[in-house]
């Protein structure tokens, strides 16, 4: 089993993510934008927000299940971006990976603080409404979204993190494993257990009908 180097969780600094865990051979698409932010270009700030805010907010929303906390995490993450943009150097971690690490650590901090309390879904999360759907279809889509949110919230924290990074954030197995400081094999194990648990939760909600056919 290939174990990845442990990196300390320190949201205020550049996390050490080794080159073997990142796609450093490919050019980092964010480096140029960071340089422009370092030169105080207002348009670059807007571009960075447009590029990263939806992904950051989605990550924090799904990990925390709380819209307000997710916004706080997104804002704090951007403060780190503004602070470090001028000092960013090519060749260290990919910027997007670094940013995910920052946001993950901020989420970890918040989850630790409320460890004693079960993860409560925030009813105030405004769900997007697909205007192309009929009202009854919208209701059905809303119910499905709520159910999936509840299933995700019911997962153990590490399983939830694995599925959010790999599935929703569309990270490669290597990137997700590096962010979680685990091996790829351990990530696969977490993903498998997460999907089994989600299936069980949803099956229970669907009246014990085995979804998707049994294997």
């Amino acid at each position, binding site marked *: 089993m290939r174990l990845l180097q442990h990196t300390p969780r320190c949201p205020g600094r550049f996390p050490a993510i080794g080159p073997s865990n990142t796609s450093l051979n490919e050019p980092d698409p964010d480096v140029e934008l960071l340089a422009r932010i370092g030169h105080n270009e207002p348009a670059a700030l807007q571009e960075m927000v447009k590029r990263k805010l939806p992904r950051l907010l989605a990550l924090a929303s799904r990990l925390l299940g709380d819209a307000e906390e997710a916004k706080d995490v997104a804002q704090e993450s951007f403060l780190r971006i503004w602070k470090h943009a001028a000092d960013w150097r090519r060749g260290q971690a990919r910027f997007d990976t670094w940013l995910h690490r920052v946001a993950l650590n901020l989420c970890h901090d918040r989850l630790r603080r409320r460890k004693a309390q079960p993860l409560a879904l925030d009813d105030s*999360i405004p769900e997007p409404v697909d205007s192309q759907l009929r009202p009854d279809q919208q209701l059905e889509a809303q119910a499905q979204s709520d159910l999936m949110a509840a299933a995700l919230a019911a997962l153990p924290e590490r399983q939830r993190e694995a*599925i959010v990074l790999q599935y*929703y954030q569309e990270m490669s197995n290597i990137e997700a494993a590096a962010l979680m400081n685990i091996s790829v094999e351990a990530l696969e194990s977490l993903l498998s257990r997460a999907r089994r648990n989600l299936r069980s939760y949803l099956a229970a909600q669907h009246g014990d009908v085995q979804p998707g056919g049994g294997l």
Partner: protein
Amino acid sequence: MTPERFAHLAEAYGAQLQRWPAEERAAAQRLLASDDAQAKAALQHAQWLDGQLDGYRVAAPSPQLAQQIIASASPPPSLWGRWFGWLFPASFVGVGVAGVLAGMLVASLALPLPSSAHEALPNLFDSGDADLVQSLDTTEDTEQ
């Protein structure tokens, strides 16, 4: 790739092969192309959960949040700030240059000249020629 390995990967990464490890995709495609029943069943099994996962949509960020975040970046310096930013270091340079010049002037006046030039150009602070100057003054008074 064995059907068991295929099922394991489908259970971990879901039904979309582009989410699978890059090095496994080609072999997985070949297994699927061979109409392997176990592989197809595993894919169908994973597809259902993918559909459920896709159903969980989170809200897009509001324009207000985006504006707050942009505003949290350091504002560009004002006109006065830019002038100050230019003048402040320039003033240090100016003071430094003035100090060096003043030091050179004092040194040139206070230090004794080399012995060869001493006789030709007496130093202002050198009182060695006081007797000569006084005698010249006395001579002039006498002549008058």
